[in-house]
């Protein structure tokens, strides 16, 4: 049995929406990171889906790039989080508003 491409795209949209909503409402930095990952992977899912639908390998190649960049971003982001955690003992994003204009 195989599902139509629309299902995959719908799933990706739902995942992306959950991720975006989580990013907006949660304050814990780690959770926000997970939300970002969720959104990135939702995007990856659409890439793969379209790649299969259109018989174009380029979409899957892009997914690899996205994975690599996401991994790098997580490394940097977690590094920052650890550095902040050492100074502040909390990981609430709203506490970090020292760049307020």
């Amino acid at each position, binding site marked *: 049995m195989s599902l139509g491409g629309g299902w995959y795209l719908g799933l990706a949209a739902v995942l992306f929406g959950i991720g*975006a909503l989580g*990013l*907006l*409402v949660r*304050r814990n930095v780690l959770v*926000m990171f997970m939300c970002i990952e969720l959104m990135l992977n939702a995007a990856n899912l659409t890439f793969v889906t379209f790649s299969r639908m259109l018989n174009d390998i380029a979409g899957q190649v892009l997914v690899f790039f996205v994975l690599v960049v996401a991994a790098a971003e997580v490394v940097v982001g977690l590094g920052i989080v650890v550095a902040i955690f050492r100074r502040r003992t909390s990981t609430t*994003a*709203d506490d*970090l*508003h*020292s*760049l*307020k*204009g």
Partner: protein
Amino acid sequence: MPLLPLAGFAVLVAGGRRIGDPRAGWVGTVAVAGSFVAACITLAGLLNVTPASKRVFTQTFFTWIPVGGLHVKVALLVDPLSITMCMFVTGVSMLIHLYSIGYMKGDRDYSKFFVYLNLFVFSMLVLVLANNLLVTFVGWEGVGACSYWLVAYWFRRESAASAGKKAFIYNRIGDTGFLLAMFLIFSKVGSLDYLTIFSHRQLLAGGTATAAVLLLFLAATGKSAQIPLFNWLPDAMEGPTPVSALIHAATMVTAGVYLLCRMNQVLALSPDARWVVAIVGGVTAFVAATIATSQQDIKKVLAFSTVSQIGYMVLAVGSEAYIAAIFLMVCHAFYKGLLFLGAGSVIHGLDDEQDLKRMGALRKFLPWTYGTFLVGWLSIVGVPPFSGFWSKGDVLTNVYAKSKPLWALGVVTALLTAYYMSRLFFLAFYGKDRWAEALGDQPAHHNPHESPWVMRVPLVVLAVAAAAGGVLDLPWVHHDSFAHFLQPVFATSLFDANAHPLNQWVLALVDAGVALVGIAVAWQLWRVRVDRPALEPPFLQRVWYWDDFYDAAIGRPGQALARFSATVVDGRIIDGAVNGVATLVRSASTGVRRLQTGYVRNYALGIALGLAAILVFVASRTWWS
């Protein structure tokens, strides 16, 4: 010929300080003497050429500015007019260089003085010998610059520095006229070359010629110290006396007259402009003569006298008596140079005293100066047979043919000239020895001493020239005379054409009579007494309030404008604009700053909303198109 002074200039610039006190002066003098000899040789060569109309030579060195239709060559034009100028410029310069060796002795910048003098002679020769207007202009600016340096030579003195500035600024006003005249002529004729301009002068006919002549005349009023730009010359007396003699009496100030004579073929096209020239010259001669009657400073009297004499030359030019103008110029160079050098000798002898009221009885102490000054005095006053009589008579005869009122003005001026020069002479050399008394806070001078021989020799040579200069152009000599020599250069000359021989005799007698009357009046008034306030009204002492007028009409409004610019334009408008931009940016950024909350979720919301907006836009374009 001009290269020798340039070489002298270069040598003195390079090693003047090392060459030292008297020798630097000798280097300069020898350089100028060399060019005098060169001028003599050229003159002899020119005289050998016959017929006289062929006596025009152009020597091209290189093309200076080849741009489009403008080809300016650095070239010299040798013709009777330019060689005449060269003769007396180099001759008088040589004598004054020699004189300066003695006069400037012990000055701290001795060699620098000769640097400037040599550069001046070079510039003057360039001015005189140039074959086109632009090269003349180079010389014109060169002499102007040297004049500035030399007037402000004792620049540690405040008044000398500001006099230099004044001279320079007045000259700049005139130079504007020169430049505009050049543009005008080039736009009409397409060339700046004198000979080309003359052969195409019909292109300038009508209003153009009038405009060109008036612009050139503006230049001449600046350089030759005529109304309205004459005020700088008396102030220029702040310079050392040899400078006053060389630049501000004999050579540079006659450059304006020379320019007008050189452009005589253009002047011939415009009777209106000639009237302006003649009237300005006559009025200047008169005004300056009245001022000279009441000046205290010996050099100021001579300065106003120079202005007045140049007024005569300009009057002659306006009357188309170019030959008379040049003749007077040459004679004036002799006797006014002599008078200035004599005054310098007096000042030198009295340890830099320039006030006539503190002189007197000098004839016993300065016999050489007295004797030569006597000759200069009789020349300028116009007593026959000295040169001034012939040259001034020549001018007045021509003016008589042009216009009777101007002639009358000239005769009155001659009377005033005789009066003020005699006043100067009697105050300085006769009466009591007032220098021996202390005056106010100024101590008495010790006995004056006669100048060294290097200063006396030029005095004697110039005295001979001033006495005998009239021989150049006696009215009854028609061949081999000065006028005959210069004739080919000029388009017209009124001389001999309109004056009846009997008229000439009458006019000459009038001149001589006026001179004697002037002397007699001054003898009565000034031989014994020194103090006659009624004859020295403040109106004349303050130069007809010309300077005050310029101060009120130009200086004050100029300052007010500058102040207005400083406070209102600069303070409010320009600073206001700058500060206004800053204030605007600050208030705008204070508003925008509130967006920068520092909360990540706010930013994320912004991104999400923006994304949503883009999606809606793309979707709407996809579905409804």
